[in-house]
């Protein structure tokens, strides 16, 4: 089967410290993947490399079989852990910005998602609460008809109500032909929406399995498995 994302022997270091150590990973289409690890385990680095925002020191990265570059950026939708919109913007400006920037932006989908998220077009981006701001970022990211969606910590620091809404939106609006990777360290709240999980520890993949396999083979939740692997 064709892979949506493929990393082979990818390494990256920041000022001498290895952030990713020979990471190899293949993601198939139609999957929701949890990229799980504690802070500083390399999750954001991996996502930025897949997006093409930073270059690996060694190894190859392909999206839809094509080496990461201009062509793959057009089909990769990345939600960084910091908002991309500017403080002067209203919600509609942020939407326009994305529409102008990305050819695959789907305005009808954006309108539908805004309503679902209870976001007003005239709302000021700078006055949005943390939870509403995450909802907007998710709307912008998922409104593109991309092949690969990468969400960096979409539920970090938001209350349980906003979290549930964000999970609903992910289940509702991701498309089956694409794949979606979500990084988080909040495993318990989100593990039911995953097909597979990847445990990243100190820059290395220590586990990659289907979540139902983990439950069946170990009689454990992904959350318990996570605590076991990352516990100190």
């Amino acid at each position: 089967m064709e892979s949506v994302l493929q990393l082979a022997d990818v390494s990256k270091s920041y000022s001498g410290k290895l952030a990713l150590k020979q990471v190899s990973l293949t993601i198939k289409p139609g999957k929701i993947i949890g990229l799980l690890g504690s802070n500083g385990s390399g999750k954001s680095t991996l996502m930025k490399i897949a997006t093409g925002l930073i270059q690996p020191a060694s190894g190859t990265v392909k999206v839809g079989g094509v080496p990461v570059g201009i062509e793959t950026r057009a089909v990769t939708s990345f939600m960084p852990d910091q908002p991309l919109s500017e403080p002067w913007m209203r919600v509609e400006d942020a939407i326009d910005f994305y529409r102008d920037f990305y050819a695959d932006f789907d305005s009808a989908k954006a309108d539908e998602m805004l309503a679902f998220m209870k976001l007003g077009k005239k709302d000021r981006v700078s006055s949005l609460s943390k939870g509403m701001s995450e909802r907007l970022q998710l709307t912008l990211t998922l409104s593109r008809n991309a092949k690969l969606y990468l969400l960096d910590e979409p539920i970090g620091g938001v209350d349980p109500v906003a979290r549930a809404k964000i999970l609903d939106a992910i289940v509702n609006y991701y498309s089956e032909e694409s794949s979606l990777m979500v990084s988080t360290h909040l495993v318990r709240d989100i593990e039911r929406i995953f097909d597979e999980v990847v445990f990243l520890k100190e820059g290395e993949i220590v586990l990659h399995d289907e979540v139902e396999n983990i439950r069946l083979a170990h009689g454990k939740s992904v959350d318990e498995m996570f605590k076991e692997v990352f516990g100190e």
Partner: protein
Amino acid sequence: MSIEFDNNLPIYLQIMNYIKKEIIIGNLKAGDKIPAVRELALELQINPNTIQRTFQELEREQIVETRRGLGRYVTSEESKIMDIKKEMAGELLGRFIQGMQELGYKEKDIITIVSDAVQEKDKAKG
């Protein structure tokens, strides 16, 4: 529909058991349409592929059938529904007997305990 999930067990098995129970107690009747994958995924906040797998397993067990272009339906064979009931009762019974044996009860004692408990319950009902 609402299910309290246990994350320690495969989710698809829990949804399968839930749907089977709904059929046995008659909330879902023979020939009823069952929800679409997306609809149920959203309602339960579960990965759509997990729901898909649930339905495939139910189809494999011939509890659910797909009608081309129309969706999925509960089997219209009443005998199949009786089978599920027997099967689920069998599982419960198996677990119970095993648990009692682990506590050291012999077969005869188990039967006595069960029949006493059933009589007690009848009396309590008055």
